[in-house]
């Protein structure tokens, strides 16, 4: 029943929420969250809990600066004028935040990906924010006016809040509208495949489209999907999750991996198939989104899969595909005549407070201020950076709609209803996903087959589970399936 609601009712509600929200007046709570945060900082200063001249150390990635400090540092200056607390931002490497925090960087607040939360919490690298949310009356609600989008996926691990949502990253499919609309292409496609040229609904249709448009001699590749080992799971997981209805689980109830199965192998083969229609060198080490996204933006690829940040990039000045692309939901599989697809958060730049932070309360209040409906709309509404909408109100903001395109935001809004938690949701997630990444990449490079990749991953997952303690892993796995946002 719940899955039925998810499948049909939630996307409808999301779209209705956006449409309805556009007619609503500005929410009464806008700015209040920021005011309360500033007042709390002033109280901390007045009480002596925070010394005057204290500096707040921020650890952001290079692409975060505009989003978190504002264009021309306007947000930074505003915060410093309001509180007198100086923001000292430093660039952290584009790597797992777990690696970053294992060395004391001295930062008070930094960004983390959703799937990293369980490991960060289990290893004691980040602060449990639940008491701070309560202390400062910071509500993680998802009201349709200006609430957070799916806070259950963005902030929580079990009963504990570990992050402040600051980025909404799920997977979207980008296609070349001009090629889909071309009468010549439509005719040629119908002649070859016997059906109309349209956005794909299934992964098989997607592969047909890639094959059809793959014309390297003409400078056009079928697709520009990432196949870098770092984060390979992100592009495999949507294929795998939608392989059975209501979704395909990674483990059975006793934590036995369900990878070396026909559906696991099929998802992997679909993952591998895209390599044939990609630019040479796509599977080389380090060929992440910096390699594939320009191909699509320069008009050298028919399709790509990325977060909604892709729309911002492709809609930017200088993009060869500006006005020539569409953003649609990722493909799925048909089950008994019903089409089913599942999405999952990838990347993600939500805010976490390291356990080693010297100014944890101050950092939390800065995050509370930054994610205020008003302030956050200004922080998201810039052309640079990869922080994407994460409140429902962002989707109605005129500046943000101009930057991302209304179509991309509507697709984005609808996809959250089909979204399942990121990664495995388990302690040891980093190890599980690293094994999966390694074997998927070996398969993508043709070193092993899809079946062998799943077989090896299953064996490595079993070893990881045994090493971490099967009983505890089983307990966590079963608990994660029952909690809100879990795979129940």
């Amino acid at each position: 029943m719940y899955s039925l609601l998810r499948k049909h009712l939630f996307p409808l509600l999301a779209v209705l929420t956006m449409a309805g929200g556009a007619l609503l007046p500005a929410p009464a709570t806008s700015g209040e969250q920021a005011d309360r945060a500033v007042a709390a900082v002033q109280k901390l200063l007045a009480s002596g809990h925070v010394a005057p001249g204290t500096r707040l150390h921020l650890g952001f990635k290079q692409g975060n600066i505009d989003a978190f400090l504002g264009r021309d540092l306007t947000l930074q200056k505003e915060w410093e004028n309001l509180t007198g607390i100086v923001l000292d931002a430093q660039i952290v490497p584009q790597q797992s935040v777990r690696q970053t925090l294992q060395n004391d960087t001295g930062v008070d607040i930094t960004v983390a990906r959703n799937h990293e939360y369980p490991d960060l919490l289990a290893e004691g690298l980040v602060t449990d924010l639940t008491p701070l949310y309560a202390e400062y009356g910071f509500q993680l609600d998802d009201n349709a006016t200006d609430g957070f989008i799916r806070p259950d996926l963005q902030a929580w691990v079990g009963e504990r809040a570990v992050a402040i949502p600051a980025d909404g990253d799920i997977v979207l499919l980008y296609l070349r509208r001009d090629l889909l609309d071309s009468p010549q292409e439509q005719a040629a496609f119908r002649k070859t495949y016997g059906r109309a040229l349209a956005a794909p609904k299934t992964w098989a249709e997607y592969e047909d489209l890639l094959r059809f448009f793959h014309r390297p001699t003409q400078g056009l590749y079928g697709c520009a999907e990432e196949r870098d080992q770092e984060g390979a799971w992100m592009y495999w997981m949507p294929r795998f999750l939608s392989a059975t209805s209501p979704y395909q689980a990674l483990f059975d109830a006793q934590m036995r991996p369900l990878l070396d199965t026909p559906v696991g192998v099929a998802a992997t083969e679909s993952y591998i198939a895209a390599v044939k229609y990609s630019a040479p060198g796509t599977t080389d080490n380090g060929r992440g989104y910096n390699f594939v996204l320009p191909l699509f933006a320069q008009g050298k690829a028919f399709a790509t899969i990325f977060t909604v940040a892709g729309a911002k990039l492709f809609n930017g000045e200088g993009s060869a595909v500006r006005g020539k692309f569409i953003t649609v939901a990722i493909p799925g599989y048909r089950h008994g005549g019903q089409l089913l697809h599942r999405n999952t958060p990838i990347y993600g730049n939500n805010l976490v407070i390291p356990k080693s932070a010297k100014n944890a309360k101050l950092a939390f209040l800065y995050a509370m201020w930054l994610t205020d409906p008003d302030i956050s709309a200004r922080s998201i509404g810039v052309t640079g950076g990869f922080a994407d909408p994460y409140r429902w109100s962002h989707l109605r903001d005129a500046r943000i709609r101009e930057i991302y395109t209304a179509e991309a935001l509507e697709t984005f809004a609808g996809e959250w209803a089909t979204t399942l938690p990121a990664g495995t949701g388990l302690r040891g997630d980093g190890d599980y996903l690293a094994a999966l990444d390694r074997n998927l990449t070996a398969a993508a490079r043709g070193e092993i087959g899809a079946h062998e990749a799943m077989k090896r991953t299953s064996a490595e997952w079993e070893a990881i589970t045994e090493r971490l303690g099967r009983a505890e892993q089983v307990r966590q796995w079963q608990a994660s399936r029952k909690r809100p946002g879990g795979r129940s």
Partner: protein
Amino acid sequence: MSAQPYQSGPATVQAPPARRRFRQSLLVRLSIMFALGGLLVAVILLFGNRVLDDAKQRLENAVIRQVQPLAATHRLQMRSNDLRTLELELPMVRDFFALPQYVGRIQSEIDAMSAELTPFTAVLAQGRPDDARRLEEHWQRYRGDLEEIIRHAGAMDLAAAENVTSTRSRSAHAAISSILRDLVSATELASTEAYRQAQQEQQRQQRFFLALSFGGFVFLAVGLLIFARSLSRRIRTLRDAATGLAAGEDREPIAISGDDEIADLGMAFNAMQDRVVSRERSLRAAREELEERVTRRTHALAAANARLWMLSQAVEQNPIGVLIANIDRRVEYANPAYVRVTGRPADTQLTGSLPDAADLERSREIDAAFRMALLAGQDWEGERRSRRPDNSEYWEHLRLVTVRNEQGRPAHLLLMREDISQRRMQEEKVAYQAYYDSLTALPNRTLALDRLQQATSHAGREGSKCAVMFIDLDNFKQINDTLGHVAGDELLCQAAERLRSAVRAEDTVARLGGDEFLVILGGVSHASDADAVASKIIHAFAPLFQIDGREFGASPSIGVSLYPDDGAEPAVLLRNADLAMYEAKEAGRNTFRFFNQKIHDDSVARMEMERQLRGALERGELEVHFQPLVSARDGQLVGAEALLRWTHPVLGRVPPDRFIPVAEQSDLIVSIGSWVLDEACAQAARWRKARNGAFIIAVNVSPRQFSSPGLVDTIRACVDKYAIPHGQLEIEVTEGLLIRNPGEVRDAMLALEAIGVTVALDDFGTGYSSLSYLRAFPFHTIKIDRSFIRDLSDDAEDCALVVAAIRMARALGLKVVAEGVETEMQSRFLTRQESDVLQGYLFGPPIAAKDFFVDWVQNRPGAELPA
């Protein structure tokens, strides 16, 4: 005389003439005179003030005309350079989502540059239309290039953007910079000319003002002269009368003429004359007192003048440049040193007294502080690098002091300037010596550690790695000892050159001391990067070194540690690289090793053993055991070899091959070795007495003991203390000792021979076993290594080697001791080959002293000592 108005006449007093209605009194006439004079002075002062104001205004205008265009040009240069920096950084952006930040900043800088350039070119066009047009054209071209770069960034085509930055935009930016530089030069020339003209105009007006003042004063003087002459004649009459009165002459009343104060004076004089005489006496006394006061005052003034002269000479001859200006900053005085220091005449205004800066950028802040202090009338001091008109540069110490008058109000400004170039040069030299190795000019250990700290901090921020390489030259000591220190220094210099050539310019090559070098590699992504550099260094050392016309090989042993994998602290990284270097040495040298867990574990274990060993002697855990030496001829005991044993309460019996190397590495061997020597000699003395005959005691001495000072003295003290007869204490050394310090070792052996101590070459056959060693050093005994003896039974080659060794020793007159004899067959063979002394388990293992006494000394007679 009849014409004298105050002519003396009969005793009657002439009546004054009737008063006219308007009396031309002296007061009226003097008032008119002073009014005219005052008016003249006022006119001159007003005119002079106007002249000064004009001159000041001209100078200020000249300065403003110089500063404003220069400031505007400088701002444009800054903006142009900022744009260039941004466009060069843009293609290096690692994350495409950060591109809009750079695009936004470039766009903002373009707008700002345009806003600044438009009024600038408008003004420039009035005087230099060609330059204005060229500047505008180049800016439009550069702006077009920048906008193209922005378009490429928008299309995420960084290669195209980089293509533009490395070609077109580079030339456009260079053209703009060139024009701006030319403008700066032209502006400076024009301003200098304007300044010179303003100064000339000021001097001309000064001359005119002086001439006018002179004319005014001449006019005033003539007026006063005429007036004085009219008064003089009448006053002389009065004077003569007064003189006569003063001289006490008998005088008549003087005649009165005129209608002014002098006539009044004449009448008053006549009235006074009667009273004067009576007061003359008291006046004389008063005058004498007054003269006395004047004399005293004159002396005081003379003293003050002398002091003033002395102080003025002190300032005049002071080596520090001194300039004194009044409170309006007009220069009143500058001593000769001021001209010497600055290399130019003193300025007339203090505001212009700073010369050209050698480094405009670095002087800007200090110049601003100087001017601010000058304007505020505050004391100030600072140091600055300046340039004289002859373009020589120098460091000077500036001190500005406000001199206050007795009321505490500023009266003068004192500017002192001292040439401190020598001191600064000395300081820089000291700083260089503190951070650089004087031989190789490489950074020394202090600077290397600082660089390593910076490299780890940078890598920490960037999330990258850095590598530390600890390099030791394998055979440096041999070359140094063979050819001398000069050649050794030459080898170090050449090695430094090769290291420098093997790494990138931004990497650090340092000399830690001796033949130890350190290489710090930044921006390392993987261990394989360091691997490649280490291979490159080894390859660089492959060609032979040319020293004094001879060729030598010197290979490096390299230990590598990586940040953060092998440690976060520089000291830890250095230690781990050092450990890895030792691993490379042990692996055969001329190679490299990365630090790993095994090296760490071995190091920890070695340190733990060293810690335990450090107190072992005091805790009584060490013990000397003795293994019998028997005569090959008749099997009788001739002596014993002292062997060190360590029984640890936890570790149990620790094998000597484990703890002796640790003791050698840590210098503990020196104290332990001395103890063993003393213990062995003491036991030998007891047994010699008990046997009532000879007893040879053989004691092993390590190379480390030989290198420590006082070994011969220690042995001599033992010989004296225990009265050891000649030839009954034998020191056993290994070949390794001979290689290290051949000269010193030979001297030590000769010194031991002189006191009757013999020396044995231990483990003979396992090393080089060079015949030249046996000939070059005064050995008495060779000890054939147990490995040859062990294989005697079944190895014909070893049999031949042992026979050859015995024959060779015989030929050189050396005694032969065979170690490790375990079988009767070996014993018979060695006896047959005329070996002198046998040692091994066949005769007895090493045992404690008390057991040795019971088993070997108590009940056995001594054998005759072999020759």
